[in-house]
């Protein structure tokens, strides 16, 4: 619906590193009617640090610049050097600091320091940016609605800070992703070219070449949304880790002005003097401005690298792009006098060069401001201008005794209307508050924060009945925090019992005993549990690499498969390679291929390798020989996902196969079908005397496969539990010197996963569970008195045994220690 009265002129603003621009669009016609750009009267935008307590920060982008931190020797507040720092923080430095922190995945962003009047003044980069945006927005937009561009990786906390500062300055602000602003400006110019292109080519590459970083963002162009009158809409995906690479701006400045003094370089920089060309691309032998003044070590690369990277990307993927938008201070940077990004574009992607835009410095900011103004105008008319993806937000839940993180916002690739309020179409149902609870606790994890947070709300009365709960989630992409609302209702009477509203900012971070925030996975492991988490075998990149030569040799020799199966030496070396463990991943168990049949390298090679092995197995299964047995073992070590192979294994476990050990071994590693697993355990644990290989295979199945106990009857599980305890007791009497001691312990604890399907299994008060606890307590005593000497060594045995008791008591925490040194 279009609002009839919303015809105010609106502004779009883009604040770059050394320049900025604002464009005003008429609300009725949508035409650009005014622009505000830094001409000769403007200098590099900076924020003046306050001297007096209570003095606000001040944006300075006018010329002549304010004396503070200007580089003059008098008055003293103008001095800039490595000892006192500088009384002004350039916006370029703030953008660099925050994006470099993103680059290094480091949450600790350096602060800008200035020692003056005997006091150390500090300013965080994000405060610098928020204040600069708010003050510039206030100066430009006055009371008009204004859309301001933000980088694609601008975190929610940063967005909220900018919004808060703008609102405090009475600025009616909306935020817009910078690549989207570029895409909207591009669409304004080249929209007509899209109709002829197939869907696979409707992508736009946005490149932002700034002082500290270079950002590549891919924007999909999709056909119009139901709530938009636009024919084409840019769609933004969440930022990926490899979107951002180090830039070269600060290094180039240091190289090209190495003959100048620090204050001269600073003055040139403050005068808005960017570096346009670098004829001699020598190594940096001095310090960057940020290093000299603030001791900030910023990552940088040689200017050649981004040029090459851009060139390679164009060669590889230009067929996918409808155009390229290049903005930022270094968009027009020339290397050795002639190579610029636009020339590379012309040479390596001439087809898309015609529909591409290279706009450097102010021109780039004008382009982005124009895109922002288009968005602001359409937003005030309730027209969807672009599609967006929301950040990952997860709620900690317990389902059937299993703890997990439940995604609250939409899926990773699902687009929602940008700039509009998005509400989860269906509330999350099936949540419940336990009987007798006096409070509700919500624990939420956000991908942009390194710790989980909680909010606890007291119930008005104790929940006598189980309370059902619905969770409503809403968020506006790029406009700050998501809102959560939990509606509680009495399950029996369906009467509402209250609502809980959670605001991320007001949620309390959960800290460990050292005061550090706890991440999602650690929090999951900390929860008291009735059964242990799976402990799968991981895949190791180094092991995969080491085994490559043998695997390649095997693939090469596949055509002569008859000879191959008889070459037992080669097969043994191959077996050795795939079973080799990666000791560097201790305490995790890792081999070339994980227990989930995934490899860290090219999947095609693995598929080819396994197809060859299965081919050999099929050919020779009717006449097994030594080579065949090794092939079966290799397939086991690969945890190959083949029902045919699994069925053959289960069939031969009870048959007269010459090497039943290898069959059991492979079944333990490959079994996935819960019916087959139930058959295997039923056969193995039918006898009183269970072999070590049987125990090992059973323990592996139970710790690798989530549904291992699903098809088992409770009687069978109890039998497995009982027999394993018997083995454990026997081995304990022998000093625990055998592997059987370890495997039986593992089976006892992992068979508790049956509680997922039968919550009454092995209740802590049951006779069998009591017996198990007595046994393990005895083992702890023996261990402390030195009577137990299990194989393995470095595991803290009393702690590992106590952990088993805790799991039987439904108070278990963390990964099973006993499983760590599995052989």
């Amino acid at each position, binding site marked *: 619906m279009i609002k009839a009265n919303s015809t105010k002129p609106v502004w779009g603003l883009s604040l770059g590193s050394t320049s900025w621009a604002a464009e005003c669009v008429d609300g009725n016609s949508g035409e650009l009617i005014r622009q505000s750009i830094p001409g000769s009267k403007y200098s590099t935008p900076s924020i003046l640090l306050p*001297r*007096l*307590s*209570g*003095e*606000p920060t*001040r944006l300075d982008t*006018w010329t*002549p*610049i*304010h*004396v*503070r931190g200007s580089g*003059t*020797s*008098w*008055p003293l*507040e*103008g001095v800039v050097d490595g000892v006192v720092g500088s009384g002004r923080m350039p916006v370029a430095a703030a953008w660099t600091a925050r994006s470099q922190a993103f680059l290094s995945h480091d949450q600790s962003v350096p602060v800008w320091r200035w020692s003056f*009047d005997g006091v150390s003044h500090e300013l965080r980069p994000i405060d610098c940016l928020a204040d600069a945006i708010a*003050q510039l927005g*206030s*100066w430009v937009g006055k009371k008009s609605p204004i859309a301001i561009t933000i980088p694609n990786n601008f975190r929610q906390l940063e967005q909220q800070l900018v919004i808060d500062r703008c609102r405090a300055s009475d600025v009616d602000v909306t935020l817009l992703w910078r690549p989207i602003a570029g895409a909207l400006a591009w669409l304004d110019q080249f929209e007509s070219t899209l109709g002829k292109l197939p869907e696979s080519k409707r992508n736009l590459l946005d490149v932002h070449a700034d002082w500290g970083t270079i950002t590549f963002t891919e924007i999909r162009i999709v056909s119009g949304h139901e709530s938009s009158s636009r024919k084409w809409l840019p769609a933004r995906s969440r930022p990926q880790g490899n979107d951002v690479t180090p830039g070269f701006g600060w290094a180039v400045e240091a190289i090209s002005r190495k003959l100048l003094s620090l204050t001269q370089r600073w003055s040139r920089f403050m005068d808005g003097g960017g570096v346009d060309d670098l004829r001699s691309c020598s190594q940096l032998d001095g310090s960057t401005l940020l290093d000299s003044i603030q001791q900030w070590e910023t990552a940088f690369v040689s200017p050649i690298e981004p040029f090459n990277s851009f060139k390679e990307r164009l060669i590889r993927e230009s067929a996918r792009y409808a155009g390229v938008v290049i903005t930022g201070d270094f968009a027009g940077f020339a290397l050795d006098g002639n190579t610029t990004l636009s020339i590379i574009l012309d040479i390596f992607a001439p087809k898309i060069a015609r529909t591409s835009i290279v706009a450097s410095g102010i021109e780039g900011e004008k382009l982005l401001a124009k895109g922002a103004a288009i968005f602001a105008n359409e937003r005030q008319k309730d027209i969807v201008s672009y599609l967006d993806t929301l950040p990952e937000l997860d709620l900690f839940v317990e389902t059937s005794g299993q703890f997990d993180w439940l995604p609250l916002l939409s899926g990773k690739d699902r687009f929602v209307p940008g700039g509009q309020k998005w509400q989860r179409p269906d509330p999350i149902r099936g949540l419940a508050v336990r009987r007798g609870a006096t409070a509700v606790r919500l624990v939420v994890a956000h991908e942009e924060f390194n710790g989980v947070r909680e909010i606890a709300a007291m119930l008005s009365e104790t929940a006598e009945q189980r309370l059902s709960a619905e969770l409503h989630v809403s968020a506006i992409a790029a406009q700050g925090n998501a809102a959560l609302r939990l509606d509680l209702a009495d399950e029996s009477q369906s009467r509402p019992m209250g609502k809980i509203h959670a605001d991320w900012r007001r949620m309390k971070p959960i800290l460990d005993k050292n005061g550090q925030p706890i991440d999602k996975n650690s929090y999951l492991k900390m929860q008291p549990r009735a059964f242990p988490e799976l402990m799968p075998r991981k895949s190791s990149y180094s092991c995969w690499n080491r085994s490559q030569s043998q695997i390649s040799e095997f693939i090469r020799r596949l055509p002569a498969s008859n000879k191959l199966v008889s070459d037992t030496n080669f097969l043994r070396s191959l077996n050795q390679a795939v079973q080799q463990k990666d000791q560097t991943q201790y305490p995790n168990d890792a081999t070339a291929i994980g227990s989930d049949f995934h490899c860290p390298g090219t999947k095609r090679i693995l598929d080819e390798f396994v197809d060859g092995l299965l081919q050999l197995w099929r050919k020779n299964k009717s006449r097994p020989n030594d080579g065949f047995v090794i092939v079966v073992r290799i397939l086991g070590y690969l945890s190959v996902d083949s029902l045919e192979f699994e069925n053959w294994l289960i069939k031969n476990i009870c048959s007269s196969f010459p090497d039943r050990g290898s069959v059991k071994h492979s079944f333990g590693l490959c079994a996935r079908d819960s019916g087959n697993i139930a058959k295997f355990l039923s056969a193995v644990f039918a006898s009183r005397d269970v072999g070590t290989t049987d125990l090992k295979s059973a323990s592996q199945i139970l710790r690798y496969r989530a549904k291992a106990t699903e098809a088992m009857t409770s009687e069978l599980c109890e039998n497995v539990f009982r027999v394993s305890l018997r083995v454990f007791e026997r081995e304990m009497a022998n000093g625990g010197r055998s592997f059987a001691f370890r495997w039986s312990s593992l089976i006892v604890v992992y068979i508790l996963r049956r509680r997922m399907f039968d919550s009454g299994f092995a209740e802590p008060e049951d006779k069998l569970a009591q017996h198990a606890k007595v046994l393990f307590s005895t083992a702890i005593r023996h261990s402390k008195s030195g009577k137990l000497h299990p194989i393995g060594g470095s595991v803290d045995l009393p702690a590992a045994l106590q952990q088993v008791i805790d799991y039987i008591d439904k108070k278990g925490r963390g990964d099973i220690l006993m499983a760590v040194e599995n052989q």
Partner: protein
Amino acid sequence: MSGMTQAASTKVLDIAPDVSPILDVLEDYSRFIDELFDQPKPHSAFWEGNVGNTAIRSVGRVVYKWRHSLIENQPPLALIVRLSRKLSDIVSDIGQHPRKILERRRSMEPVSRFRELDSTCVRWLIRQPGLSIVEKAGHRRQILAVQRFESVNTLENRVLVDLLKRCRTLAADYLRHHAGRFPNHVWIQATQRFKRICEQFVDSAELACVQSITSLPQPNYVLLHESRYHEVWLAYEQVIRQQTRRQQLWQSRQSVWAEMCLIAIWSSMSLLARKSGSGNCRSTHRCDLWVRDKLEDGGFIDWSSCPTDWKLDSVSRVSVVPAKVLANRFQTIRSGGDFSFVRMKAGGEEEFEDLVAVGLDLPDSNETEQQATVSVSFSKNGSVVSKDVPLDLLKRPDFFDDRLRGWFLDD
């Protein structure tokens, strides 16, 4: 008498005279500072604001205000004018209905009329001979009893009367200076009316029994929370502060006048720099000046924030600063005097071409306003030149414009 005791007694005796052209000028200057302090100019590009007791203003704003402070078509908006506009109705109201309290007083009362006895009265009664009250009352038929009566002699009324007396003096001074030139101006009329109100109630029978105040009192609940008396208290504080400042101005007259002279010269420097090239003055104009709301260290300006040099052309810059600031900047210079001019070559920080040390010699306070000038000695390259500068620089903001180049740059 030792030297120190003599100095101390001289300081004690250095009391501000009731009438002094120097004080009048300095009070005009302090009013200029007050206006500067009270009127931060909201501008989204160049911030100005007050931080605690300090106002941060740009040098450009200060020199602009200096040049345009004198508006010849109206009298100055002094404190008494503001008070006359604000307090006239309140004072009239209170004067007619001052706040009263019931006081108790013991006095001899006829036995037939006494109403209340307290312990003292009872003790007196016991001591009297006789058995019954009638016998104890004696032949006068009177006993000591508590009598209640209304009184206006309260702290709030004492403050009011003191304020009225002070406002009467302030109004008289203001009218003496400005009524002749602007007899029909609304501010003059308001002040005259307020003066009449003050006189009416100071001498009224209603407030005649209110005692005078001997020292600055602590405000009571009424002064802090009763709406009419609270306004009285706020006004009283302002008046006291102004009169205290008058004394401080007198004691620091040399340095305050030097500060005023400095701003006058900055104003002319700004004009000179602007004429030498557009934009030459802008760099200095953007510097912060910290203005305090009260006198400290003999001035209103906090020199912790100091303006940069005035750029006159592409080769020379001039710094006009107090002598103590100059000594901080150029360790080798000891200029003496009250303030100094330093002319520097382009690019040179420690190299300077000329140093002009300026010393002031204020006249006696009993000179008439028309005759009052300041003898200023300019010491340059060893030679000392004395010149006269008019006291009322605020009324002649362009005084240094023509003289500046000839005095300090060309000769």
